[in-house]
Protein backbone atom coordinates (compact mmCIF):
# COMPACT_ATOMS: atom_id res chain seq x y z
CA UNK A 1 0.00 0.00 0.00
CA UNK A 2 1.22 3.50 -0.67
CA UNK A 3 0.19 4.58 2.78
CA UNK A 4 0.20 2.78 6.02
CA UNK A 5 -1.34 4.33 9.04
CA UNK A 6 -1.12 1.63 11.60
CA UNK A 7 -3.98 2.64 13.67
CA UNK A 8 -5.27 0.31 16.27
CA UNK A 9 -8.94 0.66 16.75
CA UNK A 10 -9.89 0.15 20.33
CA UNK A 11 -13.53 0.27 19.59
CA UNK A 12 -15.39 -2.81 18.55
CA UNK A 13 -18.33 -3.89 16.44
CA UNK A 14 -20.80 -2.98 19.18
CA UNK A 15 -19.53 0.60 19.06
CA UNK A 16 -20.04 0.63 15.33
CA UNK A 17 -23.58 -0.67 15.70
CA UNK A 18 -24.43 1.87 18.39
CA UNK A 19 -23.00 4.57 16.17
CA UNK A 20 -25.21 3.43 13.30
CA UNK A 21 -28.28 3.23 15.52
CA UNK A 22 -27.65 6.77 16.71
CA UNK A 23 -26.85 8.07 13.27
CA UNK A 24 -29.97 6.59 11.74
CA UNK A 25 -32.05 7.54 14.75
CA UNK A 26 -33.59 4.10 14.98
CA UNK A 27 -35.02 2.35 17.99
CA UNK A 28 -32.51 0.07 19.65
CA UNK A 29 -35.39 -2.29 20.48
CA UNK A 30 -36.53 -2.43 16.89
CA UNK A 31 -33.40 -2.35 14.76
CA UNK A 32 -34.02 -2.36 11.02
CA UNK A 33 -31.56 -5.20 10.51
CA UNK A 34 -31.37 -5.11 6.73
CA UNK A 35 -30.50 -1.40 6.64
CA UNK A 36 -28.10 -1.51 9.52
CA UNK A 37 -26.36 -4.60 8.18
CA UNK A 38 -25.84 -2.93 4.85
CA UNK A 39 -24.35 0.17 6.44
CA UNK A 40 -22.24 -1.91 8.79
CA UNK A 41 -20.71 -3.71 5.84
CA UNK A 42 -20.09 -0.39 4.09
CA UNK A 43 -18.12 0.90 7.07
CA UNK A 44 -16.18 -2.34 7.19
CA UNK A 45 -15.42 -2.01 3.51
CA UNK A 46 -14.18 1.54 3.96
CA UNK A 47 -12.03 0.57 6.92
CA UNK A 48 -10.42 -2.16 4.88
CA UNK A 49 -9.92 0.20 1.98
CA UNK A 50 -8.03 2.52 4.32
CA UNK A 51 -5.99 -0.37 5.56
CA UNK A 52 -7.10 0.18 9.13
CA UNK A 53 -6.78 -2.71 11.49
CA UNK A 54 -10.08 -4.48 11.30
CA UNK A 55 -10.22 -6.93 14.14
CA UNK A 56 -11.73 -10.36 13.70
CA UNK A 57 -14.60 -9.41 15.98
CA UNK A 58 -15.92 -7.14 13.25
CA UNK A 59 -16.18 -10.04 10.86
CA UNK A 60 -17.87 -12.24 13.43
CA UNK A 61 -20.42 -9.51 13.96
CA UNK A 62 -20.93 -9.17 10.21
CA UNK A 63 -21.73 -12.86 10.07
CA UNK A 64 -24.09 -12.53 13.02
CA UNK A 65 -25.91 -9.65 11.37
CA UNK A 66 -26.31 -11.51 8.12
CA UNK A 67 -27.57 -14.52 10.00
CA UNK A 68 -30.15 -12.45 11.86
CA UNK A 69 -31.18 -10.79 8.64
CA UNK A 70 -31.78 -14.13 6.95
CA UNK A 71 -33.78 -15.40 9.88
CA UNK A 72 -35.93 -12.29 9.76
CA UNK A 73 -36.69 -13.05 6.13
CA UNK A 74 -37.91 -16.54 6.85
CA UNK A 75 -41.64 -16.81 7.10
CA UNK A 76 -42.70 -17.54 10.64
CA UNK A 77 -44.41 -20.89 10.60
CA UNK A 78 -46.09 -21.91 13.75
CA UNK A 79 -45.15 -25.56 14.00
CA UNK A 80 -41.46 -25.65 13.36
CA UNK A 81 -38.86 -24.51 15.79
CA UNK A 82 -40.80 -25.00 18.97
CA UNK A 83 -38.00 -23.87 21.16
CA UNK A 84 -37.41 -20.69 19.22
CA UNK A 85 -41.01 -19.93 18.68
CA UNK A 86 -41.87 -16.29 18.93
CA UNK A 87 -38.32 -15.30 19.68
CA UNK A 88 -37.17 -12.24 17.82
CA UNK A 89 -33.88 -13.15 16.13
CA UNK A 90 -32.59 -9.71 17.11
CA UNK A 91 -33.21 -10.18 20.79
CA UNK A 92 -29.77 -11.35 21.84
CA UNK A 93 -28.07 -8.60 19.86
CA UNK A 94 -30.35 -5.95 21.32
CA UNK A 95 -29.68 -7.22 24.80
CA UNK A 96 -25.93 -6.92 24.27
CA UNK A 97 -26.22 -3.45 22.81
CA UNK A 98 -28.43 -2.22 25.62
CA UNK A 99 -26.13 -3.62 28.24
CA UNK A 100 -23.05 -2.16 26.61
CA UNK A 101 -24.79 1.19 26.30
CA UNK A 102 -25.36 1.22 30.05
CA UNK A 103 -21.64 1.06 30.67
CA UNK A 104 -21.00 3.75 28.14
CA UNK A 105 -23.38 5.93 30.10
CA UNK A 106 -21.51 5.02 33.26
CA UNK A 107 -18.30 6.19 31.60
CA UNK A 108 -19.89 9.54 31.00
CA UNK A 109 -20.90 9.76 34.66
CA UNK A 110 -17.43 8.83 35.86
CA UNK A 111 -15.87 11.31 33.49
CA UNK A 112 -17.98 14.09 34.96
CA UNK A 113 -16.54 13.54 38.39
CA UNK A 114 -13.62 15.54 39.75
CA UNK A 115 -10.84 13.45 38.27
CA UNK A 116 -7.56 13.44 40.14
CA UNK A 117 -4.79 14.94 38.05
CA UNK A 118 -7.27 16.65 35.76
CA UNK A 119 -9.66 18.66 37.92
CA UNK A 120 -8.20 18.32 41.37
CA UNK A 121 -4.63 17.75 42.45
CA UNK A 122 -3.13 16.30 45.58
CA UNK A 123 0.02 17.64 47.12
CA UNK A 124 3.07 16.91 45.00
CA UNK A 125 2.86 14.63 42.05
CA UNK A 126 0.09 12.27 41.31
CA UNK A 127 1.90 9.01 41.23
CA UNK A 128 -0.05 6.27 39.60
CA UNK A 129 -1.26 7.94 36.45
CA UNK A 130 2.08 9.29 35.41
CA UNK A 131 3.93 8.23 32.36
CA UNK A 132 2.88 8.15 28.81
CA UNK A 133 2.59 4.80 27.20
CA UNK A 134 2.67 3.86 23.61
CA UNK A 135 -0.96 3.34 22.84
CA UNK A 136 -1.98 6.89 23.32
CA UNK A 137 -5.37 8.27 22.64
CA UNK A 138 -5.88 11.25 20.54
CA UNK A 139 -9.46 11.78 19.67
CA UNK A 140 -12.38 12.89 21.71
CA UNK A 141 -14.68 11.38 19.15
CA UNK A 142 -15.47 7.82 18.31
CA UNK A 143 -13.52 6.53 15.34
CA UNK A 144 -16.87 5.63 13.83
CA UNK A 145 -18.09 9.19 14.12
CA UNK A 146 -14.99 10.11 12.16
CA UNK A 147 -15.49 7.41 9.57
CA UNK A 148 -19.15 8.43 9.39
CA UNK A 149 -18.09 12.01 8.68
CA UNK A 150 -15.69 10.71 6.06
CA UNK A 151 -18.50 8.71 4.46
CA UNK A 152 -20.63 11.83 4.30
CA UNK A 153 -17.85 13.68 2.51
CA UNK A 154 -17.32 10.76 0.14
CA UNK A 155 -21.01 10.51 -0.63
CA UNK A 156 -20.97 14.09 -1.89
CA UNK A 157 -18.59 13.30 -4.68
CA UNK A 158 -19.79 11.53 -7.74
CA UNK A 159 -16.67 9.68 -8.62
CA UNK A 160 -17.03 5.93 -8.28
CA UNK A 161 -14.54 3.73 -6.45
CA UNK A 162 -11.40 4.50 -8.35
CA UNK A 163 -8.91 4.47 -5.55
CA UNK A 164 -6.39 2.31 -7.36
CA UNK A 165 -5.86 4.81 -10.12
CA UNK A 166 -5.75 7.95 -8.07
CA UNK A 167 -4.04 6.93 -4.91
CA UNK A 168 -0.48 7.32 -6.09
CA UNK A 169 -1.03 10.97 -6.69
CA UNK A 170 -1.68 11.66 -3.05
CA UNK A 171 0.61 10.95 -0.21
CA UNK A 172 -0.14 11.09 3.49
CA UNK A 173 3.04 13.11 4.05
CA UNK A 174 1.90 15.86 1.69
CA UNK A 175 -1.48 16.04 3.30
CA UNK A 176 0.14 16.27 6.72
CA UNK A 177 2.01 19.34 5.53
CA UNK A 178 -1.12 20.76 4.06
CA UNK A 179 -3.13 20.31 7.27
CA UNK A 180 -0.35 21.75 9.42
CA UNK A 181 -0.03 24.80 7.21
CA UNK A 182 -3.72 25.42 7.45
CA UNK A 183 -3.72 24.94 11.19
CA UNK A 184 -1.04 27.61 11.47
CA UNK A 185 -3.45 30.11 10.09
CA UNK A 186 -6.78 28.81 11.30
CA UNK A 187 -6.15 27.13 14.63
CA UNK A 188 -9.23 25.00 14.18
CA UNK A 189 -10.83 23.55 11.06
CA UNK A 190 -14.17 21.79 10.69
CA UNK A 191 -13.52 18.27 9.49
CA UNK A 192 -15.36 18.55 6.20
CA UNK A 193 -13.65 21.86 5.38
CA UNK A 194 -10.41 19.92 5.04
CA UNK A 195 -11.47 18.65 1.66
CA UNK A 196 -11.75 20.57 -1.57
CA UNK A 197 -15.09 20.49 -3.24
CA UNK A 198 -13.51 18.90 -6.25
CA UNK A 199 -11.39 16.41 -4.33
CA UNK A 200 -11.10 12.88 -5.59
CA UNK A 201 -11.97 9.91 -3.50
CA UNK A 202 -8.35 8.88 -3.07
CA UNK A 203 -7.39 12.36 -2.00
CA UNK A 204 -10.14 12.50 0.59
CA UNK A 205 -9.12 9.18 2.06
CA UNK A 206 -5.46 10.13 2.18
CA UNK A 207 -6.34 13.42 3.88
CA UNK A 208 -8.39 11.49 6.39
CA UNK A 209 -5.46 9.19 7.09
CA UNK A 210 -3.24 12.23 7.54
CA UNK A 211 -5.61 13.51 10.21
CA UNK A 212 -5.47 10.18 12.00
CA UNK A 213 -1.70 10.14 11.79
CA UNK A 214 -1.41 13.67 13.18
CA UNK A 215 -3.85 12.85 15.92
CA UNK A 216 -1.90 9.73 16.75
CA UNK A 217 1.26 11.83 17.03
CA UNK A 218 -0.66 14.16 19.36
CA UNK A 219 0.03 17.09 17.08
CA UNK A 220 -3.62 17.75 16.46
CA UNK A 221 -6.70 17.00 18.44
CA UNK A 222 -10.04 15.96 17.11
CA UNK A 223 -13.05 17.17 18.91
CA UNK A 224 -16.78 16.94 18.42
CA UNK A 225 -18.89 19.86 19.51
CA UNK A 226 -22.37 19.64 20.97
CA UNK A 227 -23.97 20.12 17.59
CA UNK A 228 -22.11 17.13 16.20
CA UNK A 229 -19.56 19.05 14.14
CA UNK A 230 -16.13 17.45 14.17
CA UNK A 231 -13.25 19.89 14.33
CA UNK A 232 -9.52 19.51 14.07
CA UNK A 233 -7.47 21.76 16.27
CA UNK A 234 -3.84 22.44 16.92
CA UNK A 235 -2.54 21.12 20.19
CA UNK A 236 -0.72 23.61 22.32
CA UNK A 237 2.90 22.61 22.28
CA UNK A 238 4.34 21.89 25.69
CA UNK A 239 1.21 20.48 27.17
CA UNK A 240 1.94 16.87 27.55
CA UNK A 241 -1.09 14.75 27.80
CA UNK A 242 -0.59 11.80 29.99
CA UNK A 243 -2.84 9.05 29.00
CA UNK A 244 -3.85 5.73 30.31
CA UNK A 245 -4.72 3.21 27.80
Amino acid at each position, binding site marked *: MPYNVRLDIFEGPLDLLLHLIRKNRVDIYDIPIADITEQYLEYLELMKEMNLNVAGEFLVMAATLIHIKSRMLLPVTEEEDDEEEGVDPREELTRRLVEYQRYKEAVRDLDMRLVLG*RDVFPRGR*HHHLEGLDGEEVFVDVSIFDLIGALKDVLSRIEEPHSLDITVDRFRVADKINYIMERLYREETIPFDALFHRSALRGEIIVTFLAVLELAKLLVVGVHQTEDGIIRIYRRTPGTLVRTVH
Partner: protein
Amino acid sequence: MTELGTIKPIIEALIFASNSSITLDRIATILEGEDRKVIKEALDELIKEYETSERGFTIVRVAGGYQLRTRPEYSPWIRRLLKTTTRISRASMECLAIIAYRQPITKGEVEDIRGVDSTGILRSLLEKRLIRIVGRKDAPGRPVLYGTTREFLETFDLKDLSHLPTLKDIQMMEEGDACGETPEGDSQGRGDIETEGRGDDSRGEGESERQGGNLPGGEGRS
Protein backbone atom coordinates in the same frame (compact mmCIF):
# COMPACT_ATOMS: atom_id res chain seq x y z
CA MET B 1 -9.29 13.07 76.72
CA THR B 2 -7.39 15.60 74.72
CA GLU B 3 -8.77 18.92 73.73
CA LEU B 4 -10.18 19.05 70.25
CA GLY B 5 -8.06 22.12 69.65
CA THR B 6 -4.93 20.15 70.42
CA ILE B 7 -5.45 17.25 68.08
CA LYS B 8 -6.90 19.21 65.20
CA PRO B 9 -3.57 20.67 64.08
CA ILE B 10 -1.92 17.28 64.56
CA ILE B 11 -4.48 15.66 62.29
CA GLU B 12 -4.10 18.49 59.81
CA ALA B 13 -0.35 17.89 59.80
CA LEU B 14 -0.87 14.15 59.26
CA ILE B 15 -3.12 14.75 56.28
CA PHE B 16 -0.64 17.25 54.88
CA ALA B 17 2.28 14.86 55.21
CA SER B 18 0.53 11.80 53.80
CA ASN B 19 1.39 10.62 50.34
CA SER B 20 -2.13 9.56 49.57
CA SER B 21 -5.35 9.68 51.49
CA ILE B 22 -5.07 8.79 55.16
CA THR B 23 -7.78 6.80 56.91
CA LEU B 24 -9.32 7.50 60.25
CA ASP B 25 -8.00 4.13 61.41
CA ARG B 26 -4.49 5.18 60.62
CA ILE B 27 -4.89 8.51 62.38
CA ALA B 28 -6.31 6.70 65.40
CA THR B 29 -3.32 4.35 65.49
CA ILE B 30 -0.93 7.27 65.37
CA LEU B 31 -2.81 9.23 68.04
CA GLU B 32 -2.63 6.29 70.41
CA GLY B 33 -5.60 5.96 72.65
CA GLU B 34 -7.46 8.93 71.26
CA ASP B 35 -11.20 8.54 71.09
CA ARG B 36 -12.27 7.90 67.50
CA LYS B 37 -15.30 10.06 67.97
CA VAL B 38 -13.12 13.00 68.90
CA ILE B 39 -10.89 12.39 65.91
CA LYS B 40 -13.90 12.26 63.65
CA GLU B 41 -15.18 15.46 65.15
CA ALA B 42 -11.83 17.15 64.60
CA LEU B 43 -11.79 15.96 61.00
CA ASP B 44 -15.27 17.26 60.36
CA GLU B 45 -14.32 20.61 61.81
CA LEU B 46 -11.18 20.75 59.70
CA ILE B 47 -13.15 19.98 56.58
CA LYS B 48 -15.62 22.72 57.42
CA GLU B 49 -12.88 25.21 58.16
CA TYR B 50 -11.23 24.60 54.82
CA GLU B 51 -14.55 24.83 53.09
CA THR B 52 -15.50 28.14 54.61
CA SER B 53 -12.14 29.84 54.37
CA GLU B 54 -11.14 30.88 50.90
CA ARG B 55 -8.26 28.56 50.36
CA GLY B 56 -6.97 27.08 47.16
CA PHE B 57 -7.32 23.61 48.53
CA THR B 58 -9.64 21.59 50.71
CA ILE B 59 -9.69 18.38 52.66
CA VAL B 60 -11.79 15.80 50.89
CA ARG B 61 -13.08 12.45 52.01
CA VAL B 62 -12.05 9.98 49.38
CA ALA B 63 -11.33 6.25 49.11
CA GLY B 64 -12.20 5.79 52.76
CA GLY B 65 -9.69 8.40 53.87
CA TYR B 66 -8.87 12.07 53.90
CA GLN B 67 -6.74 14.01 51.48
CA LEU B 68 -5.71 17.56 50.70
CA ARG B 69 -6.70 18.53 47.20
CA THR B 70 -6.75 21.69 45.19
CA ARG B 71 -10.13 23.14 44.40
CA PRO B 72 -11.41 22.28 40.94
CA GLU B 73 -11.69 25.92 39.92
CA TYR B 74 -7.90 26.27 40.05
CA SER B 75 -7.14 23.31 37.81
CA PRO B 76 -6.13 25.44 34.80
CA TRP B 77 -3.27 26.94 36.79
CA ILE B 78 -2.15 23.62 38.21
CA ARG B 79 -2.11 22.14 34.75
CA ARG B 80 0.13 24.96 33.67
CA LEU B 81 2.40 24.26 36.59
CA LEU B 82 2.64 20.53 36.08
CA LYS B 83 2.38 20.63 32.29
CA THR B 84 0.46 17.39 32.41
CA THR B 85 -3.06 16.29 32.76
CA THR B 86 -4.56 12.91 33.34
CA ARG B 87 -6.46 11.59 30.42
CA ILE B 88 -7.97 8.21 30.36
CA SER B 89 -8.98 6.90 27.00
CA ARG B 90 -12.51 5.98 26.19
CA ALA B 91 -11.66 2.30 25.87
CA SER B 92 -9.86 2.29 29.21
CA MET B 93 -12.76 4.09 30.82
CA GLU B 94 -15.14 1.48 29.48
CA CYS B 95 -13.12 -1.37 30.90
CA LEU B 96 -12.81 0.47 34.19
CA ALA B 97 -16.52 1.11 34.39
CA ILE B 98 -17.37 -2.49 33.58
CA ILE B 99 -14.90 -3.76 36.17
CA ALA B 100 -16.07 -1.24 38.77
CA TYR B 101 -19.70 -2.24 38.49
CA ARG B 102 -19.30 -5.93 37.85
CA GLN B 103 -16.30 -6.89 39.95
CA PRO B 104 -14.96 -9.42 40.44
CA ILE B 105 -14.96 -10.06 36.73
CA THR B 106 -12.76 -11.95 34.26
CA LYS B 107 -11.20 -10.54 31.13
CA GLY B 108 -13.51 -12.76 29.09
CA GLU B 109 -16.56 -11.28 30.74
CA VAL B 110 -15.31 -7.73 30.13
CA GLU B 111 -14.73 -8.63 26.49
CA ASP B 112 -18.18 -10.17 26.19
CA ILE B 113 -19.68 -6.86 27.19
CA ARG B 114 -17.40 -4.68 25.05
CA GLY B 115 -17.35 -7.07 22.12
CA VAL B 116 -13.68 -6.48 21.53
CA ASP B 117 -10.32 -7.76 22.75
CA SER B 118 -9.27 -5.88 25.86
CA THR B 119 -5.98 -7.56 26.79
CA GLY B 120 -3.78 -4.53 26.28
CA ILE B 121 -6.12 -2.18 28.05
CA LEU B 122 -6.41 -4.40 31.11
CA ARG B 123 -2.64 -4.72 31.27
CA SER B 124 -2.25 -0.98 31.19
CA LEU B 125 -4.94 -0.46 33.83
CA LEU B 126 -3.10 -2.96 36.02
CA GLU B 127 0.14 -1.05 35.52
CA LYS B 128 -1.58 2.16 36.45
CA ARG B 129 -2.95 0.40 39.50
CA LEU B 130 -6.49 1.36 38.67
CA ILE B 131 -7.43 -2.32 38.75
CA ARG B 132 -5.95 -5.33 40.46
CA ILE B 133 -6.24 -9.08 40.47
CA VAL B 134 -8.56 -10.13 43.24
CA GLY B 135 -8.61 -13.87 42.74
CA ARG B 136 -9.44 -16.59 40.31
CA LYS B 137 -12.81 -17.66 39.10
CA ASP B 138 -13.97 -21.12 39.93
CA ALA B 139 -14.45 -22.01 36.29
CA PRO B 140 -12.59 -23.97 33.65
CA GLY B 141 -9.11 -22.54 33.23
CA ARG B 142 -9.43 -20.70 36.55
CA PRO B 143 -9.37 -17.29 34.88
CA VAL B 144 -8.09 -14.29 36.81
CA LEU B 145 -10.67 -12.01 38.37
CA TYR B 146 -10.22 -8.26 38.37
CA GLY B 147 -11.45 -5.58 40.72
CA THR B 148 -10.86 -1.87 41.17
CA THR B 149 -8.34 -0.42 43.59
CA ARG B 150 -8.08 2.33 46.11
CA GLU B 151 -6.33 4.41 43.44
CA PHE B 152 -9.43 4.01 41.31
CA LEU B 153 -11.56 5.48 44.09
CA GLU B 154 -9.07 8.30 44.56
CA THR B 155 -8.90 9.05 40.87
CA PHE B 156 -12.64 9.39 40.54
CA ASP B 157 -13.28 11.11 43.83
CA LEU B 158 -15.29 8.25 45.29
CA LYS B 159 -15.62 7.62 49.01
CA ASP B 160 -16.20 3.95 48.33
CA LEU B 161 -17.76 1.74 45.68
CA SER B 162 -21.28 2.33 46.92
CA HIS B 163 -20.85 5.91 45.73
CA LEU B 164 -20.44 4.91 42.10
CA PRO B 165 -23.00 6.70 39.96
CA THR B 166 -26.06 4.55 39.55
CA LEU B 167 -26.13 2.51 36.36
CA LYS B 168 -29.06 3.72 34.35
CA ASP B 169 -31.49 1.16 33.13
CA ILE B 170 -32.51 1.97 29.62
CA GLN B 171 -35.73 0.03 30.09
CA MET B 172 -33.93 -3.25 30.22
CA MET B 173 -36.03 -6.00 28.71
CA GLU B 174 -34.74 -8.66 31.00
CA GLU B 175 -31.76 -8.70 33.20
CA GLY B 176 -31.67 -12.39 33.83
CA ASP B 177 -28.29 -13.19 32.46
CA ALA B 178 -26.03 -11.35 34.85
CA CYS B 179 -23.76 -14.32 35.05
CA GLY B 180 -20.48 -14.39 36.81
CA GLU B 181 -21.27 -11.95 39.56
CA THR B 182 -22.45 -13.50 42.70
CA PRO B 183 -23.09 -11.84 46.01
CA GLU B 184 -20.15 -13.70 47.55
CA GLY B 185 -17.98 -12.58 44.72
CA ASP B 186 -18.85 -8.99 45.33
CA SER B 187 -17.80 -8.92 48.91
CA GLN B 188 -14.67 -10.86 48.19
CA GLY B 189 -13.59 -8.50 45.50
CA ARG B 190 -14.01 -5.36 47.48
CA GLY B 191 -12.69 -6.66 50.75
CA ASP B 192 -9.98 -4.20 51.50
CA ILE B 193 -11.82 -1.26 50.15
CA GLU B 194 -14.71 -2.12 52.40
CA THR B 195 -12.62 -2.18 55.53
CA GLU B 196 -11.04 1.10 54.66
CA GLY B 197 -14.27 2.67 53.73
CA ARG B 198 -16.26 1.58 56.71
CA GLY B 199 -15.94 1.95 60.38
CA ASP B 200 -14.96 5.55 60.27
CA ASP B 201 -18.19 6.48 58.75
CA SER B 202 -19.99 7.81 61.77
CA ARG B 203 -21.81 10.28 59.62
CA GLY B 204 -23.12 7.27 57.83
CA GLU B 205 -22.88 8.79 54.40
CA GLY B 206 -21.98 5.55 52.79
CA GLU B 207 -24.85 3.68 54.30
CA SER B 208 -27.53 6.25 53.98
CA GLU B 209 -27.37 6.36 50.24
CA ARG B 210 -27.21 2.70 49.66
CA GLN B 211 -27.11 -0.29 51.84
CA GLY B 212 -23.83 -1.87 52.67
CA GLY B 213 -22.33 -3.96 49.96
CA ASN B 214 -24.81 -3.39 47.20
CA LEU B 215 -23.36 -2.19 43.99
CA PRO B 216 -25.42 0.61 42.56
CA GLY B 217 -25.76 -1.16 39.28
CA GLY B 218 -28.79 -2.98 40.45
CA GLU B 219 -27.42 -6.15 38.97
CA GLY B 220 -28.55 -9.42 40.33
CA ARG B 221 -32.05 -8.18 40.67
CA SER B 222 -34.21 -10.91 39.29
